[in-house]
């Protein structure tokens, strides 16, 4: 376990091996026999689950949480809770085309919504991970995903048909997520990620107008604290890949639907780190593809310059230790048989 390797790789540097960053999320609850809901509501369970899973997976870094409902809930969206999944957002306050200002929505403080639980979880978890040389990574919701939570699916029509309204919502989202970034800085997270899965679902021009400007406040907060910034996107983001590479973060992460050779070349061209992209369902959950073979293919494509081995997205609740054990076995086998090129040892 080596925190610095993860930081270096996400900053696009050469590393002695590809660091490993499992986004375990509610899978941490599974490993301590807790329901996702109970886990997410209890700081002590979060600390126990995250540290247990980090050790089990020999992680170089692990997210404190992978839950994109935190910001939405902190500004007033209702949640539906699940035993084996992250909560889903069930109400959209801006869906009647009222702006956050008209609704009187406020940028969260550390006392808003679930933040007190998360701050306490961070306080308890950080020393446990530090003792393992594992980075505690803070992940907050990205602007377009938060805008979807606030306005519902209409935001994808509004970015074309009602641009002033969409910009008002996104501006508020930018302020909300910058506050989240500051909370994670205050917790001591060395790496902070902006997770914006729905940003893959829009055209490149829309990404440039409605995503890129609204992550800048968060990036500024992270960089001002000397932290490492990453942007995580899901789905087939081929059409916005250049936008992702140039968004301003040190690195990014993508999911299993992309060709990792293409992603690697794009990341290196733009001098940023990249992470991905173990197959969540076919390999890790269902075992229809060998998790070991899948991990070896990613390691071979990614190499050891700016590459972080990671799942395609957050791990489903019940991914087993056996499946993930195959990934660890692949990492060991790869390190033994394909050590980093000598020129990386400078």
């Amino acid at each position: 376990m080596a925190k610095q390797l993860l930081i270096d790789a996400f900053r696009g540097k050469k590393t002695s091996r590809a660091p490993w960053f499992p986004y375990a999320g509610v899978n941490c609850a599974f490993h301590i026999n807790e329901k996702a809901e109970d886990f997410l509501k209890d700081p002590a369970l979060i600390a126990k689950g995250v540290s247990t899973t980090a050790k089990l997976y020999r992680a170089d870094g692990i997210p404190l949480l992978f839950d994109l409902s935190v910001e939405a809930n902190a500004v007033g969206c209702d949640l539906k809770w699940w035993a084996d999944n992250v909560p889903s957002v069930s109400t959209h306050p801006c869906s009647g085309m009222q702006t956050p200002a008209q609704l009187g929505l406020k940028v969260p403080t550390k006392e808003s919504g679930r933040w007190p639980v998360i701050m306490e979880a961070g306080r308890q978890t950080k020393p446990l991970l530090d003792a393992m040389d594992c980075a505690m990574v803070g992940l907050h919701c990205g602007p377009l995903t938060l805008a979807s939570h606030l306005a519902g699916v209409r935001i994808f029509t509004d970015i074309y048909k009602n641009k002033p309204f969409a910009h008002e919502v996104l501006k508020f989202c930018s302020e909300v997520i910058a506050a989240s970034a500051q909370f994670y800085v205050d917790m001591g997270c060395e790496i902070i990620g902006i997770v914006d899965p729905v940003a893959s679902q829009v055209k490149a021009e829309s990404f440039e107008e409605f995503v890129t400007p609204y992550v800048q406040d968060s990036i500024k907060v992270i960089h001002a604290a000397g932290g490492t910034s990453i942007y995580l996107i899901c789905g087939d983001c081929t059409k916005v890949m250049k936008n992702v590479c140039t968004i301003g973060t040190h690195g990014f992460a993508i999911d299993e639907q992309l060709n990792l050779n293409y992603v690697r070349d794009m990341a290196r061209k733009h001098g940023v780190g990249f992470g991905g992209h173990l197959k969540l369902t076919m390999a890790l959950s269902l075992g229809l593809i060998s998790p070991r073979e899948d991990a070896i293919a990613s390691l071979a494509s990614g190499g050891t310059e700016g590459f972080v081995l990671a799942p395609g997205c957050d791990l489903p609740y019940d991914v087993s230790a056996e499946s993930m054990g195959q990934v660890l076995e692949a990492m060991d086998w790869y390190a033994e048989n394909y050590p980093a090129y000598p020129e990386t040892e400078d």
Partner: protein
Amino acid sequence: MSDRKIQIDVLTLDSVQCAACGYMMEAIAALPEDVQQMIDYKEWSIKTKAGIGKFTELKGKVLPTICIERDLVFPSRIPQYEELIDEMAKRAPDKAMSERLLSLRDKGFQFDKVQENLQKAGAGLSTRQS
């Protein structure tokens, strides 16, 4: 107007876990009531073997994807309201339904029955209630 409804299949990772999948589902579930009466829709999560089967059967390429009448119409792109209406109208079983759909083009998404509609479409069925 035909009694046959327009079939919509949404191929997802899991609409609870994946926000992009969730909003693909919501794009259908938030269609106004008049449109709801002309469509049948279902979520196919690739976390299940049935979902993998449907993905293969429809020759899916990426997740999430909205399929209308078995065509992969919105692969990895959450549609605007009017685009959805237009694509459904193109594939309606008869001219009367197509015209009825196009007459609802200006109505816009409605959110009052989203949760109820999502449940009917099987959203979250691969997830346990807390």
